[in-house]
């Protein structure tokens, strides 16, 4: 039987043969973030795939990974496209570099995991909270249950972590502002090296 669940009015389905996604989301329902590790390469990958991109090895094992990371980039949606998100705007999609395996196997690579910016309780955050989050913000994973065997990972601000003084945000906050906060290139470049 396929795993099927109603999430925010959307029907999410994982087919029987899609064993990779099935395993991944099942671990999430146990509040475990597990990624496949190629047996030959010893490298983790995300999202679930059918072979190791570095060795073509089709054998892998599911390894628990600490769900902590840094915002690499993000999406901040003000005009909803999907009906289920009509009353959620503005909402944020976080693309975070996991601390685990960051910069491996090459400099610019990272396990970049997507999820919405949520409260620790799994609710969409307020517009005021959104304005505090940007590139550089430290985040951690939480899980929102879809069915008893299926949960979605999401991101929340890691309150226990040391946060950057001013995470990088798109310089225009409102929808009708012309006068932008000027980009401070020197601090932005420092960030790049950090």
């Amino acid at each position, binding site marked *: 039987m396929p795993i099927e669940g109603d999430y925010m009015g*959307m029907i999410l389905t994982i087919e029987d043969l899609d064993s990779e996604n099935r395993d991944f989301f099942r671990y999430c329902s146990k509040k475990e973030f597990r990624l496949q590790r190629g047996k030959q390469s010893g490298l983790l*990958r995300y999202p679930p795939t059918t072979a190791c991109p570095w060795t073509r090895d089709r054998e892998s094992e599911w390894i628990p990974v600490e769900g902590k990371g840094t915002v690499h*980039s*993000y*999406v901040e*949606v003000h005009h909803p496209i999907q009906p289920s998100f009509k009353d959620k705007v503005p909402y944020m999609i976080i693309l975070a570099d996991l601390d685990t395996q960051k910069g491996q196997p090459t400099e610019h690579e*990272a396990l970049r995991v*997507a999820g919405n910016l949520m409260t620790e309780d799994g609710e969409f955050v307020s517009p005021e909270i959104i304005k505090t989050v940007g590139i550089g913000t430290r985040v951690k994973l939480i899980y929102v249950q879809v069915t008893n065997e299926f949960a979605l990972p999401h991101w929340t601000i890691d309150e226990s972590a040391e946060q950057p003084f001013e995470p990088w945000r*798109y310089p225009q906050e409102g929808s009708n502002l012309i006068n*932008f906060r000027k980009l401070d290139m020197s601090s932005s470049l420092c960030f790049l090296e950090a």
Partner: protein
Amino acid sequence: MTISSLNEHDANSNKYLRGKYSICGVGETTYLRGSTQSTRSLATWAISNAMEDAGMKSDDVDGMLSYSGNDSTFAPSVAGDLGIRLNFYMDVHGGGSSIEALIGIAMGVIEAGMCKTVAIYRAMNGYSAVRIGGTGARSAAPILGDQIHHRAYGWQSAGQMFAPTFLRHMYDYGTTPEQVAAVKVAHSKHASNNHKAYYKKRYTVEEVVSSRIICKPLHLLDCCVETDNATCIIVTRTERARDCLNPPAVIQSVVGRCCKPRSDMHYQHGPISTVAGHYARDILWPNAGLGPEDVDITGSYDAFTFTTMLQLEDYGFCKKGEGGEYVSNGTIELGGRRPNNTSGGHLCEGYTHGMNMVIENTRQLRGNVDCSCPIDKNGRRQHTYNYKEGGCRQVKNAEVTANLGWAMPGTGSAMVMAKDHR
């Protein structure tokens, strides 16, 4: 012999068909909202116009290629309506990285002796049926397997999917909203000289950055228009194209659906502010025997203002990170060193998944762009090269064009064409 010693991209070799194939005919429907007709009907309209442009009869076309996202009509029905008997056809899945790639396929198919002339079309009701912006049927479709990793997060439309790349480029290189808005300013200037354009109004940087935010960093005016239309391009051997009504646009090089190491949203490889052009340029320029400095007009895909900038940068028209400066210093406007999307492109003329930019560059190379300049008694347009509003759109002495197609940050296609010098 080892594989590396084959010298795959030797600029002095003609084995990649440089110059052997041409675009001999181009055509389109009116760019509409509410076409009140099927994609089959739109397709026959555009193909007829392209055949008329080439001076071809039904017997002269024996191959057909089309692309769509399951929102079009397949080639056999369309060909039958036009009395075309096909020796070859194929309908493929795809969007913005298709046309340059399909032109390459058409060349290969003709080279293999499978047919003689290929009409390539894209027919879509992108406003009134399957909306390109992703609202309606697309957003209501059930969410399966791999799609859970993005659609369940409200991460679905093109603008939403590309936004992390756009924002990261601003972060990495200090690109500003005003710099990128200059793309819309340029394309709207061009569209104001194009009677076919859906939007003909000229915009300022201030108007772009004060329009409402759709999804950061995209304002409404950073996004392309949704329209209903069909477009067609006919490819044949250059020798044959020389017998057609209009001068050939001679294909120098094509690269198609070239990808970053992962073309999906996994983002494991490389900086996300780099796009597929970073890889495609190493095939495009050597095969053409030309470089960015030789190009007079670009057709860099403008699904969004940002896509134009990112591609111009990664194809080498400026240094990496300097795309914001390049698109805002006047270079890409008519009258500048290298205008981009002189028809107004997807931001203003109409949304065609890349076709209208190739059509425009074909007309530019013919020296016969359909602006409002007067036509002499020989039927030849007398271009003024005055680019004032409602004026000329022809680039003086246009010799070489480059089209840069975009599907997503990780996938792109490109083509170099040149004026025929027989």
